[in-house]
């Protein structure tokens, strides 16, 4: 095999149109992201049809910018990697159709990449020493998974959320206290001025499933707290509420992750996904891992958000395994982790 493999990667699973050029999975030559957040803010969340339309409008410019910034052309590429699930089907389809056509017309192999596998792989970009196996907590607006990364592209899922994803809970609570969309960064900011122990919110544990998560009960408690205060005509301290809610989420995430690392004997833990850029989660995980003698890895915020560099990274390891997809590759909105 050639020593240097350069991949053009495309990601369009939700509300970011992204393209990147990545060499050997860990050297990012370019990472271009066109975010639509401002467009969706007036709706209080991502509108799938608007997201899909925006992807079509921007995708060629984003890909061309990624190639330009990398100083490369399609003839320098060895493969095209694209997110084909999970995500919004209409949004995914834009990236998938585009990537297939580019690969086809350039005579390049096509590699379909799992979006979450991409998020996990984001950790490899800035941590050249990190290799499987390790434990990874994946937390985003659509996903909450605790997984053992057994090898590149091989996963054992230890736990997942039974209801809301962690990021979804952030969005819903942010909406309830009037902070708006996107909830994660807004709560994170608000919480900095609050007391995380001001209000005792429940931390759900699920009997018989020690690594599963549940956030809908916590979300309901927050809503009940707000309603109760409203009925009594009491003023709610938003900063305290945000900080206490955030602490309840973070405590459970950290506890489960560290417990799993200890039980299964891993001395390396990573976090991934949009919520991985939450400052409280990063600090708490760093402290808990430090106390337990576990090495803690996390991506920079730019690699936590949806991006294509992580798809180029995961795509590289899939490429090395010999994974190739055909021209009939479809978007799979509910693709399971580890499925091909």
């Amino acid at each position, binding site marked *: 095999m050639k020593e240097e493999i350069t991949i053009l990667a495309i990601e369009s699973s939700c509300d970011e149109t992204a393209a990147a050029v990545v060499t050997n999975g860990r050297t990012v030559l370019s990472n271009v992201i066109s975010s639509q957040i401002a467009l969706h803010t*007036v*709706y209080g969340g991502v*509108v799938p*049809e*608007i997201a*899909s*339309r925006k992807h*079509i*409008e921007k*995708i*060629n*410019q984003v*890909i*061309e910018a990624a190639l330009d910034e990398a100083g490369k052309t*399609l003839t320098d590429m060895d493969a095209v990697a694209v997110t084909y699930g999970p995500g919004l*089907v*209409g949004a995914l*389809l*834009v*990236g*998938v*159709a*585009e*990537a*297939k*056509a*580019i690969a*086809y*017309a*350039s005579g390049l192999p096509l590699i379909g990449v799992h979006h979450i596998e991409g998020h996990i792989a984001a950790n490899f970009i800035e941590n050249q020493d990190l290799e499987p196996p390790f434990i990874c907590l994946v937390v985003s607006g659509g996903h909450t998974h605790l997984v053992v990364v057994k090898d590149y592209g091989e996963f054992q899922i230890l736990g997942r959320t039974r209801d809301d994803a962690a990021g979804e809970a952030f969005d819903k609570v942010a909406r309830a206290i009037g902070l708006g969309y996107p909830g994660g960064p807004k709560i994170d900011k608000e919480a900095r001025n609050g007391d995380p122990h001001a209000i005792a919110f429940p931390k759900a544990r699920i009997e018989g499933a020690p690594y599963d998560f549940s956030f809908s009960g916590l979300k309901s408690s927050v809503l009940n707290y707000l309603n109760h205060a409203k009925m009594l005509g009491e003023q709610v301290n938003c900063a305290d509420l945000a900080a206490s809610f955030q602490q309840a989420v973070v405590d459970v995430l950290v506890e489960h992750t560290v417990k799993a690392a200890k039980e299964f004997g891993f001395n390396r833990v990573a976090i991934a996904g949009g919520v991985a850029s939450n400052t409280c989660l990063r600090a708490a995980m760093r402290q808990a891992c430090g106390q337990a003698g576990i090495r803690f890895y996390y991506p920079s915020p730019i690699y936590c958000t949806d991006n294509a560099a992580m798809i180029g990274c995961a795509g590289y390891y899939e490429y090395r395994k010999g994974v190739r997809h*055909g*021209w*009939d*590759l*479809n*978007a799979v909105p509910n693709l399971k982790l580890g499925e091909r």
Partner: protein
Amino acid sequence: MEKMKILGIETSSLVASAAIWEEDVIVAEYTVNFKKTHSQTLLPMIDEIVRMTETQLASLDGIAVSGGPGSFTGLRIGSATAKGLGLALKKPLIHVPTIAAMAYQCYGSRYLICPIMDARRNQVYTGLYLFSGETFTTVMEPTAMDVRELMDTIHQTGREPFFVGDGIPVYREQIEQMAECPCHFAPAFMNRQRAAAVASLGAVYMKEGRIETAAAHQPEYLRKPQAEREREAREREQNA
């Protein structure tokens, strides 16, 4: 001079279709009207006709794509495929309105050509076209309208309409009830979208210089996203 060569793509409805047009000859056309998604069928179909006809992709002069209206997702699959091909091959795209391409299939007809696509909510995506000899004229630009309104417009022209499109099975009865003149309906072999028509009309446009870059191309949906329509309605209500 080399012969002009155009790839046509059509995915605006249930039909997936790809064709290669080479200086007034359709050297290949592949059309499927089946439940599989265009995402699974379109590129394998293009690959099949390209290989069958030994076409060098680099020899294409342009990619003609059925640009809408139609199924939002369907349009985007065709559009993203055309944009990806255009980007990689550095070729221009030709945006062919879906309704115009459907009308163009009725080349030489002496009737008022009226494509109708079922747009749901009791509306059709439609337009009106005429051939006078070989000259193809647009009487009414593509739009979404109620069948009643469409019939009134047709009656004002004083011409007999010739309907084509997947709106026929849905609205034929209503049309016949409202009609104040004889109406004509296209038979099965010519009443669905076809990439051959997209490529042929695309070639006419290309010769007129009506091309765009792959980056600039996007479908013409003729309808806003539902969430946007609802938001605008709410804002109008609040302002009233």
